[in-house]
Each structure stands twice: as C-alpha cells, then as structure tokens.
C-alpha cells in the first residue's frame, strides 16, 4: 500500500494519536463536577493563542456565535481553524485572528460570497489548505475514532486534493486508489446545543451536523447551551446524550447563543441583522465598525442580547416552527 501521491499543503496539525491519548488520560476527568462558567472564563481558560480550533454547526444555524464573539472580544490570535463556516469563522478572520485555515467553504449561502475571506486570501496573508465538506467532517471523525487517518473516495483527481495535505494510496484489499485523510484532533472545539446539564451532558434537537465528531475530536471542549437542564432529565433519556460530560471542559448558559443565526425549534434567524453584517463586510472599514459595535463595545453575551433588543428576540422566537 504505497503512497502514490501527496497533497502539497502543509499539514497544519499532524495526527498525534499517542500524545492525544496521553492528554485524554491526564486532562479529562470522569468526575461529575459542575462546569458552568461565563463565556469570558471558558474562552480565557480553554482557548489559547496559536490554537487549532473548530466550530460547529455554522454561522446561520445552531452555531456557538456567542463563544465565537467572545474569542474576538478577547482577541486570541494566530489561530488555526478547521473552516466550514459562515459568520463564526468570518468574524475571526475579520478580526485578524486567523493565520491558517483548513478550508472547505466560507461564504454566506444565499447572501453570496464572503468578502472577508476574499480580502484575507487575496492579500496572501491567510494560509489556506483546501478540503471538501465531507473531508473536514471525516478528518474529525478519524480523530474521534482515535486513528491517524480515514480512507475516503472524495477529492481524488482534483486540485482540491493537490492543495490539501491528504495522500492517495492503493488499497491493499481491492487494489483501487483511495484517499487518506489525516485525523484532526483539535486543540479546542466549541459547540452550541439545545440543552446541557451542569456536567456537560448535551442534547441536540434535529440534525446533529458534525457535533458528534467535533466533540470527540477536541482536546478541550466548550459547550454553550440554550438551556441548562437537570441531570435527572439527562438520565431519563440517555440515548439523547450526543456529547457525554467526560468530553466537556466548560458549560456556558447562552440563550440565543446562535443569534443572528437560528436555533431549530427554539428561534428563527434574524434576517435583518444578517443583512447588516453582510453589508458591513463588503468593506474593511465597515467590517471593523460592525465588530466594534457588536463585539468589542459589548462586554458580554447578556449585553449583546440587550443591544439586539428583547423585542427582536421575541419576534425570532415567535417565528420558529415546532415539530
């Protein structure tokens, strides 16, 4: 099973299974201890300059926006990011905090391209490796499995592969070419969920995106949750625990944590706010004005929500569809 071809991208974060195992042994506790803290404390403690981080799901949907804003607020720089993103990765780049990105897609969906990415990439300042959506999710899955790589059948034959850090080998069972994706065990992951208990047992309603994989592919894991629920409720439906407590380092209570994005079954997205951001992001100056007004001038998520206004939030709640 010789390596036939290697992508020429630098592997920002090589698989390091044995070091990761050691980390899990030393740093993760199975004790049932309360982990609730403010987003300020959680980010300060668990996200460090130069970290390789990942966020889930994406800027418009069940996204840890309040945590992403807190990273911007604390200006934690030289980050490397696993980037399937919309607004959450966009604000990090806009604030000048990202050096390298394992990118699959950064854009605003129906609103078009990301001008923030465009400026950063075209200036040559942002180092970019290319991947597909599934490839990034599968790289996290490999880490979640505790193995150095996962064989897949995408990216083959394309420049997306050439500018990645994947490898093509011949399968020793079938003789066919397969793509090997290196595992990505993040330094830190941030995930927003519907409900968590004080220890970090998490429930998600609707699609789970890549929360399962990202939680298991993070050395440090910060959870923000719309609601904190009792552990008795968790124990009643143990099959609903998609992220168990022993993976979690911090739990932040963050109602409307996905704003201006939506939270399925809880609230609808704030189109008006999104269009402000999309418009602002067109120019560097107005982008910085947006960051100033909505992040740097607002010391916490609670005050951010005050700035958004209860009336707006109530409308978002009223617009959401049930089951």
């Amino acid at each position, binding site marked *: 099973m010789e390596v036939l071809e290697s992508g020429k991208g630098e592997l920002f974060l090589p698989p390091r299974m044995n070091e990761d195992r050691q980390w899990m042994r030393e740093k993760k506790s199975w004790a049932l201890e309360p982990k609730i803290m403010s987003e300020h404390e959680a980010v300060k403690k668990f996200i460090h300059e130069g970290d390789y981080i990942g966020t889930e*799901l*994406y800027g*418009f*949907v*069940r996204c840890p926006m309040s945590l992403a804003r807190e990273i911007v607020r604390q200006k934690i720089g030289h980050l490397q990011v696993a980037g*399937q993103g919309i607004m959450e990765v966009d604000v990090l780049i806009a604030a000048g905090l990202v050096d390298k990105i394992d*990118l*699959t*897609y*950064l*854009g605003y*969906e*129906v609103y078009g*391209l*990301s001008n923030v*990415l*465009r400026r950063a*990439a*075209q*200036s*040559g300042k942002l*180092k*970019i490796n*290319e*991947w*597909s*959506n*599934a*490839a990034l*999710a*599968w790289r996290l*899955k490999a880490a979640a499995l505790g193995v150095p790589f996962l064989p897949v*059948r*995408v*990216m*083959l*034959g*394309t*420049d*997306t592969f050439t*500018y990645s850090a994947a490898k*093509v080998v011949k399968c020793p069972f079938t003789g*066919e*070419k*397969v793509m090997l994706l290196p595992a990505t065990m993040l330094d830190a992951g941030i995930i927003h969920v519907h409900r968590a208990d004080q220890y970090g047992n998490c429930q998600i309603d*609707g*699609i*789970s*995106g*890549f*929360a*399962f*994989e990202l939680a298991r592919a993070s050395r440090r894991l910060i959870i923000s949750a719309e609601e904190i629920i009792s552990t008795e409720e968790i124990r009643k439906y143990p099959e609903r625990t998609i992220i168990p407590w022993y993976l979690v380092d911090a739990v932040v209570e963050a109602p409307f944590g996905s704003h201006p994005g*939506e939270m*399925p079954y809880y609230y*609808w*997205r704030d189109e008006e706010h999104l269009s402000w951001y999309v418009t602002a992001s067109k120019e560097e100056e107005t982008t910085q004005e947006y960051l100033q007004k909505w992040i740097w001038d607002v010391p916490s998520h609670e005050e951010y929500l005050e700035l958004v206004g209860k009336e707006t939030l109530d409308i978002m709640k009223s617009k*959401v*569809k049930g*089951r």
Partner: protein
Amino acid sequence: MEYNQRELLICIASRQMEDRTSAFIGTGIPMLAASLAQKIHAPNLICVFEFGGTGARLEELPLGVGGSRSFYKALAASSICDVMEAAQRGLIMYGFVGGAQIDPYGNLNSTIIGDHDKPKVRFPGSGGANDIGSLVWRTIAIMPHDSRHFVEKVDFITTPGYLAGPGAREEAGLPPGTGPYRVVTDLALLGFDESTKRMTLLALNPGVTVEKVKENTGFELIIPSDVGQNEPPTDQELQILRKEIDPTNLYI
C-alpha cells in the same frame, strides 16, 4: 404564460430527475427544481441536505443546507457524515453543482482565479461540491452561459467532472459510473458525449440559436445533428412554482 430566465432554468433542471431516487440539494434553484419535480413527475424523489435533513416537508423554502426547514417534519435528521456516507455507498442519484468556471469535461472551479496562494479572486471553496461531484451517480450543473464561465481549462479543479477525459475518473480512484450528467444554462441543456466525455449540446432554450450557444462557450462544444428544443415552462409548471413552491418570490 410569460416566464423569466430563472423559472426556465428551474423547469429544465426539474425535468432531468427521475422518480424513486434521491437528490443532494443545495439552496436556491436546485431546491426549487427538486420540489417542482416532486409535484409534477417524481413524487418519490427525495431531497437530501448535506447536514443531515432527509425527506423534509418543504413547505417553506430552506434558506440554507443546515437550517431547520431542511429537516422540517423530515423522515430523518442525521448528520453530515451519515448523508455523505450514504452518497459514498452509492445511494444518492442526483446532486447539483455550480461554480465560476466549467470546462469541456464538466470540471468545475469554485475556489480561485489565479495563483492558489495569492489568488486574483478567491471564491468560497468546495463546500459539498467536491463530495457531490465525486460520489453521486449524476451531477447536474447549473451555470450562467458565457465564455467567462465556459472555459477551455479551469484555473482550479474544485469538483471533478470527467477530469482529463474517458477513464480518467476511474484512474483517479473515483467510483465508476459516476460523473457529470447535465449542464443547465440560460441558453441550453447540455450533456456529455458517451465516448469522449466532452460536453455536448442537447437542446436549445426557446429563442436561442446554435450559433449563440457556440459564441458563448469558450471551448469547442460537440454539436450533434439532432439538437433538440427545450419546451418553455408549461402553465402547470409555472403555476405550481409560483403558487405552491415560492409564493413569496424568494427565488423566482
């Protein structure tokens, strides 16, 4: 009935899909095309969204591939890995792709123009496009038709078409039998020649000439002797599209 170009694109795209199969759906035109197909000729065509929504009731048009509408009253709401792995196992028949450039073999660029490390223009990147182009049986590209988009050689192959031609996908390790199926544009419907894997004109949109298509294609297109004509949207198609699928004119 009168119609606009977008409605025409949607109708032509929708006619390409068979019943009892599945389609990977992005937001915008593909979703409207799949909805229309469901209501006209393919009631058992199932929409799959890449973050996990499968078989949703698309009563309101999803605004994103992971939004709550993509799994509203769905039959399953799983995860990106689950649906991508279903595609990898060969379960997804159709997928929609697009980009800034397409070449004669259906290769697509949605990454950069110019040099990768300091590009002239940076686009969003692959997203799910490379996955769809690699794994589904038949991709349908939806493109504006001009020589800036239809080029001899793309700056960057984000999403595989037939790569360098016959046998190239298999040689690269991509699953056999997959590849570009149709290209739907504002001028014509295009397919791919069985033996050369090069883009072929299948049918002209109403009022469009072969000459106009050629002028707007930056490479040599195969023009068979029996080029067809795309029927304009029927009244039934337009009515369903306007009244049932997009009554608030979000996309049309």
